[in-house]
């Protein structure tokens, strides 16, 4: 039982990262209706930025904040320069544009920062706690804490500020918002910037926490799990992204523990889970069901 709970805790830690990136995906999807395949690579670039500043002597936490700020500007810039001109294009063309971004950003990061593996210094002591034989690592606590803080701030931003109100109005009806005088273009830039900053946080934490080497392929599996989380929760639901992320994380960790024969195909279980959920709820757990009039 304690092993089970330990694995659940580990899963929640990983899940917090997936949830953060899934939140970034959902934010962009809600405002612009785009499935952003480049989200993982944007986070990758930001994580390289974090590494760059940490390597220049800043503490990791400060480096993360600086990287988030730069990512915000870059994200807003991508919306303005790349996405705005194709705003009205068909969904398939938008998929191609974000795939183009995916390829471009990944390779720019490699060219700019070099292809050798990087390591972030530890940001906090590597403690573990054992309440009742359940092992809880500092990683889990930090990841969950940051996710909780992030959700709280996002909630305040979206529900309690005028800016957040504008974002929600653009998400719910772009044309009416424009008529009411909401500066839709600037709000969309803000949405992309915010989501890039969230991605920067998720990516940096993923690399800072369990200390894997940072390479150009670091974000690809994380992005896949974030997609899984967003699909599970419903693509237009922020709550869904968080719940989905945690579920995917826990399921992944339990699979690794209890299905040894599946250890090299860990992805099977989250994949099967998404498929089953989508069979019964085609818009995810919390997503809005689209009603079609005939």
């Amino acid at each position, binding site marked *: 039982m304690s092993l089970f709970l330990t694995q659940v805790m580990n899963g929640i830690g990983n899940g917090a990262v997936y949830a953060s990136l899934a939140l970034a995906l959902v934010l962009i999807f809600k405002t612009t209706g785009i*499935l952003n395949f480049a989200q993982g690579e944007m986070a990758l670039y930001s994580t390289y930025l974090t590494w760059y500043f940490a390597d220049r002597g800043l503490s990791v936490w400060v480096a993360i904040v600086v990287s988030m700020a730069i990512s915000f500007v870059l994200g807003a810039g991508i919306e303005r320069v790349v996405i705005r001109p*194709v705003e009205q294009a068909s969904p398939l063309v938008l*998929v191609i544009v974000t795939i183009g971004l*995916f390829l*471009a950003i990944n390779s720019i990061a490699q060219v700019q920062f070099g292809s050798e593996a990087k390591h972030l210094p530890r940001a906090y002591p590597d403690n573990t706690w054992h309440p009742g034989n359940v092992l809880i690592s500092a990683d889990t606590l930090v990841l969950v804490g940051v996710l909780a803080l992030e959700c709280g701030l996002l909630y305040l931003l979206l529900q309690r500020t005028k800016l957040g109100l504008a974002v929600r109005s653009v998400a719910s009806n772009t044309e009416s918002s424009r008529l009411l005088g909401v500066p839709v273009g600037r709000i969309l830039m803000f949405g992309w910037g915010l989501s890039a900053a969230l991605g920067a946080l998720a990516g940096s934490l993923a690399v800072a926490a369990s200390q894997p080497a940072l390479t150009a392929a670091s974000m690809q599996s994380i992005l896949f799990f974030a*997609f899984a989380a967003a699909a599970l929760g419903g693509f237009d639901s922020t709550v869904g992204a968080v719940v989905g992320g945690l579920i995917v994380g826990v399921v992944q960790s339990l699979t690794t523990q209890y299905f040894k024969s599946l250890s090299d*195909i860990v992805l099977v279980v989250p994949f099967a889970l998404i498929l089953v959920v989508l069979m019964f709820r*085609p818009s995810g757990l919390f997503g809005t069901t689209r009603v*079609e009039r005939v």
Partner: protein
Amino acid sequence: MARTSRFATGLAAAAIVVVLLSLIPHIYGRTNTLLWAQALYIGIAAMGLNLLTGYNGQVSIGHGAFFGVGAYTTALLMQQHGWQFLPTLAVAAPLCFLVGVAVGFPALRVKGLYLALVTLGLAVLFPDLTKHYVHVTGGTNLVSLDADKLSPPAWVPTSVSAIGRDDQWAYYCALAFVVVGLIGMLLMVRSRFGRALIAVRDHEPAAETVGINISQVKVLAFAVSALYAGIAGSCSVLVLTQASADKVQTFQLSIEFLVAVVIGGTATVIGPLLGAGLVVFVQNWISNTLPKHVPSSGIVSRVLTNKASAPAVFGILLILFVLVLPDGLIGGLRRLKARSGRMLRRPRPAPATT
């Protein structure tokens, strides 16, 4: 009358193109012939994906997996059981069709974006599955073919397979399947099935009310497109002399098929083939030709001669391309034709009516 003459022109043009294409292995050496063969097999997969995504509106980013099923079936049968290439297709093609049916059924419930994601999952999952279930010497999931297994069967005339030129055999196989696939596509698109595909894409409830069996049409579209991707995978074995699957590669293939469809022209018969050619040759141009034509010093050259920068150039070109031609090459040509047609047949000023 007009219709028949148009058909005849089309047929003549197609015949000329096929003749020109069949000269390629005699003009180029091994490297370029294999590059053309690659463009052809990616074209086959893109044609299939176009049936699903272009005509039927189901977006898939997972056709690299079906491609892989075809490639592994052919490679394992040839390497471990000593089969010739062509007979392996009799196993690979039906197998891919069935896998397509198996994926098509759950896809009935999952729509749009969610389907794109589930199929993406398929592409990500496939390499793991091969690592788990394909066991060859060395404990990897790479199936390489011995050189003697790649030579064409005895009945092939030596003019199309000069000694030591197994690339020619690979090329002609790919070309043959492009022709067969293209004819199949033309027949399908113009048939009742093709019309049903479009009707389901454009308005599902309306299609249902006129008696189209939606589930049947959608699953069949999935299966046929998987079949095309599988045949493309089988052809790739001859070109690459191996079957392998890692995450980056399977994902990249899936993306290349989709890119070929969109930049060629979605829901056009010939577009995906042109798109596949563009995808293959532009990428080759970026990695091999472009670095030779940049100033020898300065930051531009340092960036462009770096191997890692090739995807950046490709990604940026891709974005610019869809910005200028969102409806692909064929769409652009059609608009050009419509515009020049209007200019040529400028209407005369209407006579005064009073």
